[in-house]
């Protein structure tokens, strides 16, 4: 459901209304902080705080990029937070690699431990059961695209399959997740 009140706050943020920005900050702090701290579990607390502040600073600077007809506000915030957290983790990994003087590897290979680490943290939720029930190729595409923000093209290239196949898998996976979640809601209500 669209949060029209929050979207109107964003309109005022676009007009450089600092009061509206702080109202927005207060409204979504809990969600953004919860997500950043979950992904950055194990990192220094100040690193997660930095990711939280960076997320809101991005909102302040780029509120005009939000398109309510395309995605819900929480989805947009999630995408920003995820991007900030993954940048932080990639930076941490790079620093570690330099310290240990490991040979430089391909970017994709660099990301593999990161993928495993982040997925481990994110999937300690009820969502894990739902994802586990999907066929493995669909699990993979949901994880890479939804949880890690890879583009469909990147996933297609990494697996050497067509972009169309990736899109179909994603759609089928989402259809199934939607059904599972509806069943869960139905079971909760009965």
């Amino acid at each position, binding site marked *: 459901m669209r949060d029209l009140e929050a979207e109107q706050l964003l309109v005022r943020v676009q007009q450089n209304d*600092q009061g509206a920005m*702080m109202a927005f900050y207060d409204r979504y702090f809990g969600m953004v902080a919860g997500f950043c701290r979950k992904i950055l579990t194990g990192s220094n607390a100040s690193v997660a705080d930095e990711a939280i502040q960076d997320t809101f600073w991005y909102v302040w600077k780029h509120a005009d990029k939000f398109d309510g007809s395309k995605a819900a506000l929480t989805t947009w915030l999630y995408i920003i937070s995820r991007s900030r957290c993954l940048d932080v983790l990639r930076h941490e990994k790079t620093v570690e690699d330099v310290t240990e003087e490991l040979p430089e590897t391909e970017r994709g290979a660099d990301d593999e431990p990161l993928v495993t680490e982040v997925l481990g943290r994110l999937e300690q939720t009820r969502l894990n059961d739902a994802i586990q029930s999907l066929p493995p190729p669909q699990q993979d595409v949901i994880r890479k*695209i939804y949880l890690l923000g890879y583009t469909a093209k990147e996933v297609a290239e990494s697996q050497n399959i067509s972009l169309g196949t990736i899109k179909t898998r994603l759609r089928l996976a989402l259809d199934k997740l939607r059904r599972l979640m509806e069943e869960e809601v139905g079971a909760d209500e009965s």
Partner: protein
Amino acid sequence: MNHDGALNALPLYSMDLLDSAEAKELEAHLKTCAACRQELESLAMVNEDLITELSHEDWSGHEKLHDDFTKKLLHEPISSPIPLRRRPRPSWKMGAWAATIAIALLGWGSAYQAHQEASYSNQILAMVSHGQQVPLASTTTGAVRHVDLYVQPRSNKALVWVKKLPPIQPNQVYEGWWIVGKAPVPAGTFKEGPHFLARPRGASAFAITIEPSGGTTKPTTPILVVGTV
């Protein structure tokens, strides 16, 4: 883009992961296809559910981070399209928004309702956001002087924010003056940065001079900036 292609592209579009060319094609299709528009709405809800599953709210550290963010925001130069000068009196709709924001500034949600007293930064922010800005003009042609003055129409509260004035010596301060009738009334002393003042009844103008530390009862140096309240 045909209908099947659009259906396949919608999940990526809903997560902002579609490249711009394909997004434009899809948007053209969406204008003519009610089924795809409905599917997009449905996907938005699925996305929200997934995100809700991934994120559990965590309000720890909110107060400190809120203050840090406020400070950073206040130091951000505003190149605002919003007319800051003499905003019209808020309508009831604006009032509702102001109330929303005031609630947010004073404390939003159970996790921080205990912190109902707004911090100094928040008070500044509220004044800058909702007060009326009074233009202050330099009395010397060509001199770059920048002072912001905000007043609240329904209270005696005012905020003066010195950003650029001729430098003062260690034994000097800037002193503000309200003009009541035709007489200057001391408004308080301050240095660079924001400073709250009380505005007396009947004040029709505001001016700033440089005075010895502690201030004086009458201006002893030329006025630097002045404006009509």
